């Protein structure tokens, strides 16, 4: 992973060259710092020139991200980054386009754009920083906050049933669906790289700690002492194993997942992760219980699902090419004159 790939024009790039001059203004201790750092480490490995990379964000703490990267970038308006990316990618398919968004930006105000971007399958990478809170507006509940969450706008607890983001993404026919966390840098780097490598809309949810307004929301998954108990790291072709000493596994009884002890069950009987299996990925996305509930399923991290499907920008370009073949290059005089003309002497 640490190896640096030769870049097409600029020669060898390093993480440092992707650091913009702007002072980073996130709160000290914010999970965003780690995500930025991992991104700066991965970008030199993509084999893409700096000038061909564009970061587009919406509004929210996460959406300041483009300012801190020395690529092309646009900090746009709330929820609309995927829509802006759709026009850019349709007309400049050769660019590497990244959308940086948050749980409120992507799933609340921008919910419509996210699902339509997924079904159209532009070759863009969407990183959704999920901190289950509105940070920039100083602490209201978000569409991913759990029910009963007490925040400034819900002093008696939130009434909203939250989104399960990856289930939503799978429901919208997302073609690359993955989850990572701010506090596992190596895994996060791998996921960013995989998101880039996939041709189609890659949706990477990143659990990100907001240490000011929602500190510890994901500690069950991110902190050393409990992480192994509550998380399941998915690896292609490998059995679903978890637990402090990897002593537990998941097997499928028909379509029903069952947690088993590896003392009594052989690894051969376990569910083998298959990124191309849509049904299994939807079951995995439903491993979404509160980790404090007894006997809960571990929260999966890694790539849930990958599917090859034509991208929108390829299709829109193909159609233009096809029309050029069928009709030839447009003749403006013919167009303006239309079918019927007459002459007045």
């Amino acid at each position, binding site marked *: 992973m640490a190896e640096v790939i030769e870049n097409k024009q600029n020669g060898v790039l390093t993480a440092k060259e992707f650091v*913009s001059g702007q002072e980073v203004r996130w709160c000290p201790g914010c999970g965003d710092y780690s995500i930025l750092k991992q991104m700066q480490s991965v970008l030199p490995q993509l084999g893409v020139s700096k000038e061909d990379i564009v970061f587009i964000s919406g509004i929210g703490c996460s959406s300041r991200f483009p*300012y801190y990267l020395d690529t092309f970038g646009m900090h746009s308006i709330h929820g609309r980054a995927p829509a802006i990316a759709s026009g850019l990618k349709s*007309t400049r398919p050769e660019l590497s386009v990244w959308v940086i968004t948050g749980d409120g930006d992507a799933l609340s105000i921008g919910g419509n754009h996210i699902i339509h971007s997924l079904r159209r399958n532009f070759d863009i990478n969407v990183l959704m920083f999920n901190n289950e809170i509105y940070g920039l507006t100083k602490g209201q509940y978000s569409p991913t906050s759990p029910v009963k969450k007490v925040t400034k706008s819900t002093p008696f607890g939130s009434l909203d049933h939250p989104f399960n983001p990856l289930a939503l993404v799978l429901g919208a026919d997302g073609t690359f669906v993955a989850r990572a966390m701010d506090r596992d840098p190596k895994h996060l780097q791998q996921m960013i790289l995989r998101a880039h490598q996939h041709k189609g809309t890659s949706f990477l949810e990143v659990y990100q700690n907001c240490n000011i307004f929602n500190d510890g929301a994901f500690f069950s998954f991110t902190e050393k002492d409990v992480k192994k108990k509550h998380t399941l790291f998915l690896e292609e072709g490998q059995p679903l194993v978890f637990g402090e000493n990897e002593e537990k596994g998941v097997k499928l009884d028909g379509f029903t997942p069952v947690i088993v002890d590896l003392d009594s069950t052989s690894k051969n009987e376990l569910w083998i992760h298959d990124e191309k299996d849509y049904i299994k990925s939807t079951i995995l996305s439903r491993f979404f219980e509160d980790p404090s509930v007894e006997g809960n399923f571990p929260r999966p991290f890694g790539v849930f699902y990958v599917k090859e499907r034509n991208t929108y920008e390829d299709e829109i370009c193909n159609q233009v090419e096809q029309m050029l073949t069928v009709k030839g290059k*447009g003749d403006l005089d013919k167009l*303006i*004159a239309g079918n019927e003309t007459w002459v*007045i002497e």
Partner: protein
Amino acid sequence: MKVTEEKDNVVIKFAGDSGDGMQLVGSQFTNNTALFGNDLGTFPDFPAEIRAPQGTLPGVSGFQIHFGNAEIYTPGDTYDVLVAMNSAALKANLDNLRKGGIIIANTSGFDSKNLRLAGYEESPLEDGQLQDYELYRIDVTKITREALKENGLGMRDKDRSKNMFVLGFIYWLFDRDPQNTLNFLERKFSKLPDVLDANVKALKAGYNFGNITEAFSVKYRVKPAKMPAGTYRSINGNPAMAMGIISAGVKSGLQVFYGTYPITPASDILHELARHKNYNIKTYQAEDEIAAVCAAIGASYGGNIGVTGTSGPGLALKSEAMGLAVMLELPLVVLDIQRAGPSTGLPTKTEQADLLQAFYGRNGECPMPIIAASTPSSCFEVAFEAVRIALEHMTPVLVLSDGYIANGAEPWKFPKADELAEIKVNIQTKPNDDKFMPYQRDERLVRNWAVPGHSGLEHRIGGLEKEDVTGNVSYDPENHEKMVKIREQKVENIANYIPDQEIEIGPEKGDVLVLGWGSTFGGIKSAVKELNDAGYKVSHAHLRYIKPFPKNLGELMGNFKKVLVPEINNGQLIRIIRDKYLVPAVAFNKIKGVPITKKEITDEVKKLIEE
């Protein structure tokens, strides 16, 4: 013995149920009239529902055409001929038929059910109430069925050809060759031989019906108009808008990206553009209005010309994104084909009530140039001009049209591609100095355009306030005020690059200046012409550039004792005019979803002069 009577100009109204095919009849007669060489103006008028309740007044769909042997500026105030396919069509339109006018009534549309639905107790065809008109009763349904006896289609499908019977009869009545419609039918139904046969037979049956029926002894003839020499075509506003966009794309050498969401009456622009992908154009039907404008901004950011089109409700949804484009200082064209509002309003009726929304309807100090089309063919020039301003001045531009212009048609002496000006595009490919400054400006205050893909120009832009020159985020109070002023001045500077306001018709000094914008053009011009002929010192000026105004506008208005501003709204341009020039302009407003007529304007001007 048939007699042919000469007429200078004629107004026909075709009216029927919204499923009767009156729009097709109207557009075919329009093309035929144009090819024949008359000048013309049209006004299609249809319900918002695709098939409104049959036989009822709200279900009436109409098409009005005014044609003549001299210049025609409007679809006409009153009709000379009313074609009524049913009772409701008669009832809805009779008020506008001039006394002595011709009524052609389809008698099978006056059965007891149709009469009841239209609210007639007795048949107006029988009870003598139409004695002031020349009434022709034709059982169109029956004769069409008779003519199609041999045709293999079912009865319902046969009945759908009755609009062609009517068209054929009207062709006979106005001494026209129906060949262009026969060609059209051949093209349209080449794969449906039975349907083609039915339509052709019905058309011919209608034509022959006039010829052989003794009741019809008079035909009419309107000689071709004496129009400036050149090659002409018939054009509607929306297709003209689409062609203007395409032409500007070709002349700028840039790819056009049209992001939009279907909305009446703007959708036809999408339909037209989607057919012409071989002109370096991509069309994108987005998930909503906001996505449509944002996608266009994304395309512009990538170095293309992003265009979005909508109507009033959609313009409201796009406001925030237009503000982003103002802040980013990227080229963008926003087409607003206005309709009657507020909210959903009257979707198929015309209004000019989005001007203040266009002017002020965004958060913060958010100036955008505004230009307005006035006739169907002017949509071409306005769209082209909007792209030019957007690209040359690095700004989003708003174009205002409306349903009346969008769906109306007129003959157009169209330009040759060579005659269209090249549009200068200045995309920067290398940094000037060591470090690229995205908000460095030239003498017009226009910033550099650096698009992804050029090494050394990597930079970040966004909706947060920019520091002058560097484009970095800045919360500095002095800088904010400076940037607000710069953005305003940049738009005002466009006045140096547009033509002076001219007087359309009338003297340079006089009693009243009628100042209009948009689709009131024809009504005002014909009214002022009539007033001039009658000796009144009245002139007409019509604004294309509304922000910024042409530099000489204040001076031009100063040459008249009074300024009258007729608008199809509750008074919008007039507020801006009064605010900017402190002139005591007088408003004339009509907000009924229909155009202002010549007579309404002449009356108003006379009243003003007599005051």
